[in-house]
């Protein structure tokens, strides 16, 4: 069964999302953008262009480039809105029955057909992204859309090859994205300031059903107007200062437009920005630059009137809904412009409460539509609630180190395995101490249980391979298995959830781990260095034995000296000294190695030494016999 995608079919931009693994996800278009301009054009050759590409050629093909067609969809020719648009739009709007058609390349299209072209692009891009056919969708419309407008939107979906499972209101979708449907009874205000339109909707929620109490707005107020007042201000200032009118210079205006938008975005997060356009123009005296510092206060001063214009419709909507400001429980911000601090401030001041943000205001409607699609498709169900492991799980390894196999916050069920080895020659058994916690040392973590795997055939250290596997099932029960790969012998332990930790304990352990993170890290580094030193001493001594008379006596003597030196310092806690002795021995032993294999093999043996030491550190398990007593002492120390 295919997915139901959620589509926010906007006046200026459209967006789409889908439920995946129980979470809504925005689908980027083929160009990699998360929104697509709702613009459609037909070139002279009859080629159809949709989205960004259509927008780019709008200037030279204005009579065949249709934008803001949402203002026309499902409307009658006699509507006030349509009359206004006939004057405003550079493309032709003609009468068709009682409704309207638009003209592209000499052919008539209904607004639904034009919207269908945008929807068809979204459908194709979604299919490419999801890797499956998409045939069903939930499409959003403004709350004030009447039956005819809703039906026309549904038709648009059908023309695009989509079965529209449901048409939902944009403010309702926004409320769904915030999970408000799970609340009991609420009055919700949705403030939607987009690229070209402003909508305010008052919703009432009861028994999980949203009812639109009232709507209002301004069909010609949005982000573009904000950009325009900033550009105008810059042009005016420049004219005052330099006496040059930038409005007549296409390239300069283009650069100003980009700079204004950039400044607007930057001033949402910073208090001041610099608008810097070198060589913006030139006159007889030479090139001219534009450099202005703009503060957030200045920007807010310029756009204040536009923000104020949104408040009147809000007041009217509240009145129409028969509500007072204090009756509203939640306020939701929708549309890119609501990122501006001054807009947020105005909304907050009016309603006397912090509006909900957090979900990307450009995507919140598409996300809500996807959630609705998920509900209709049966995907959003609380059947499977996946849990996570609150703390890391691992085992104790050489030097009392806690080696993690499963990191905290891993979604369960899950399993992980790692191969370990022995720490001493002829070690025939290993002890697996199962640990829970974030600290670097076993003694600081909680031991969930321990068991011994014996019967490992005698072999030099580092040779046996013991595979340790952790498996956590959906109920949080942990199974730990240790298996000797040579003999196939294995031992296991099952730790039920009851032997785990309470929420308070988990909380305490997480806090402790944070508090001790630095100190633990330092301690661990020393222990690791000591482990590496042990391994190097072992390798060095073994190499010396094997070298016999192939190595020069003076080199052998040097190595012996360095081995003794490292043995001596590695019992201390002086990291620098151990590191120094380690490096020196490492250099000397390579000389012996080089002598054994001749100059050509020197690099190889170095690699081998390095490899051996690495393996030893990664894979040694604390054994229960040879180094056990030492471990025991350590544990008692820290208790």
């Amino acid at each position, binding site marked *: 069964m295919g997915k139901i995608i959620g589509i926010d079919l906007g006046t200026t931009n459209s967006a789409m999302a889908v439920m995946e693994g129980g979470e809504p996800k925005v689908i980027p278009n083929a160009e990699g953008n998360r929104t697509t301009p709702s613009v459609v054009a037909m070139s002279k050759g009859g080629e159809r262009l949709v989205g960004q*590409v259509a927008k*780019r050629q709008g*200037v030279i093909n204005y009579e065949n480039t249709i934008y803001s067609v949402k203002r026309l969809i499902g409307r009658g020719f006699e509507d006030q809105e349509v009359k206004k648009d006939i004057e405003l739009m*550079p493309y032709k709007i003609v009468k068709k029955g009682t409704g309207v058609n638009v003209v592209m390349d000499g052919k008539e299209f209904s607004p639904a057909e034009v919207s269908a072209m945008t929807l068809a692009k979204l459908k194709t891009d979604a299919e490419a992204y999801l890797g499956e056919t998409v045939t069903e969708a939930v499409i959003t419309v403004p709350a004030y859309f009447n039956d005819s407008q809703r039906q026309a939107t549904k038709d648009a979906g059908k023309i695009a090859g989509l079965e529209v499972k449901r048409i939902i209101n944009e403010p309702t979708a926004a409320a769904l994205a915030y999970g408000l449907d799970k609340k009991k009874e609420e009055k919700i205000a949705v403030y939607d300031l987009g690229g*070209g339109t402003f909508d305010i909707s008052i919703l009432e929620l009861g028994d999980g059903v949203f009812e639109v109490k009232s709507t209002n707005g301004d069909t010609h107020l949005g982000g*573009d107007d904000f950009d325009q007042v900033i550009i105008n201000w810059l042009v005016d200032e420049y004219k005052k200062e330099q006496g040059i009118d930038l409005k007549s210079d*296409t390239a300069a205006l283009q650069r100003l437009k980009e700079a204004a938008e950039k400044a607007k975005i930057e001033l949402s997060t910073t208090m001041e920005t610099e608008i810097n356009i070198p060589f913006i123009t030139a006159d007889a005296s030479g090139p001219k630059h534009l450099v202005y510092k703009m503060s957030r206060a200045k920007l807010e001063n310029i756009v204040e009137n536009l923000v104020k214009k949104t408040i009147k419709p809000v007041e009217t909507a509240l009145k129409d809904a028969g509500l007072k400001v204090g009756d509203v429980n939640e306020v939701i911000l929708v549309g890119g412009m609501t990122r501006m601090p001054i807009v947020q401030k105005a909304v907050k001041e009016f309603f006397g409460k912090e509006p909900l943000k957090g979900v990307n205001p450009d995507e919140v409607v598409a996300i809500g539509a996807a959630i609705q699609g998920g509900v209709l498709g049966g995907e959003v169900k609380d059947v499977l609630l996946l849990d996570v492991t609150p703390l890391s799980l691992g085992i104790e390894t050489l030097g009392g180190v806690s080696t993690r196999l499963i990191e905290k916050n891993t979604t369960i069920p899950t399993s992980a395995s790692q191969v370990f080895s022995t720490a001493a020659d002829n070690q025939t058994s290993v002890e697996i101490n199962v640990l829970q916690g974030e600290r670097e040392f076993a003694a600081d973590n909680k031991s969930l249980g321990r068991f011994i795997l014996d019967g490992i055939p005698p072999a030099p250290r580092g040779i046996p391979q013991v595979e340790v596997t952790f498996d956590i099932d959906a109920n949080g029960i942990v199974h730990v298995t240790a298996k000797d790969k040579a003999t196939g012998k294995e031992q296991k332990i099952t730790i039920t959830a009851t032997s785990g930790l309470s929420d308070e304990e988990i909380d305490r352990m997480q806090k402790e781990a944070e508090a001790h993170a630095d100190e633990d890290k330092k301690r661990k580094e020393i222990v690791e260095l000591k482990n590496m030193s042990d391994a190097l001493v072992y390798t060095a001594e073994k190499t010396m034995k094997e070298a016999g008379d192939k190595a020069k006596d003076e080199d052998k003597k040097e190595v012996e000296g360095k081995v003794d030196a490292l043995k001596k310092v590695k019992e201390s806690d002086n990291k620098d000294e151990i590191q120094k002795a380690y490096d020196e021995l490492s250099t000397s032993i390579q000389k012996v190695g080089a002598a054994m294999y001749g100059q050509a093999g020197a690099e190889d043996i170095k690699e081998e030494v390095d490899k051996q030491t690495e393996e030893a550190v990664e894979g040694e398990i604390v054994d229960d016999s040879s180094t056990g007593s030492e471990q025991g002492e350590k544990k008692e120390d820290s208790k």
Partner: protein
Amino acid sequence: MKKDKNEKKKTDDIEQELGELKSLLQRTQADFVNHRRRVEEEKLNFVKYACNDLVAQILPILDNFSLAAKHVPENIQNDNWVMGVQAIEKQLEQILSMNGLEKVAVLKTQFNPDVHEAIGIVSNKKYKDNEIVSEEIAGYKLNGKLLRPAKVIVNKLTKQQEAPDGVLKGE
């Protein structure tokens, strides 16, 4: 008899639940497989296009260098200092082009909205219809992907009288 009915209902319930669980499992498995494929794709793209953002932010510097070069006062055209600065421009261009940056072609080219953005119209019989007359802001591709369209003035031979002032409001 009643017991049989109860048993049957129980079996039906279990079968229904089994079906639901099976479909959920399939769905989750499919989500996972798709997700994994996409993460792989995204990883490849990330490596390929990792510098896109940074390079896109450097483009205005390239623009300004070339504007600066255009406006060198005549009396210092051959000045060593000026030539040094021009060499810096070349250096920056070289580094970026070695990393896959290429300019979008505009001269004697037909307008193509895939890589060009029209910001104005002229009507001039010297040029063909739809031909690019001038480049106001250069366009760039990085490793084949469009970073910024070239902003251009385009020639229109038909219906040019109807054109208002060449700039479409609201676009």
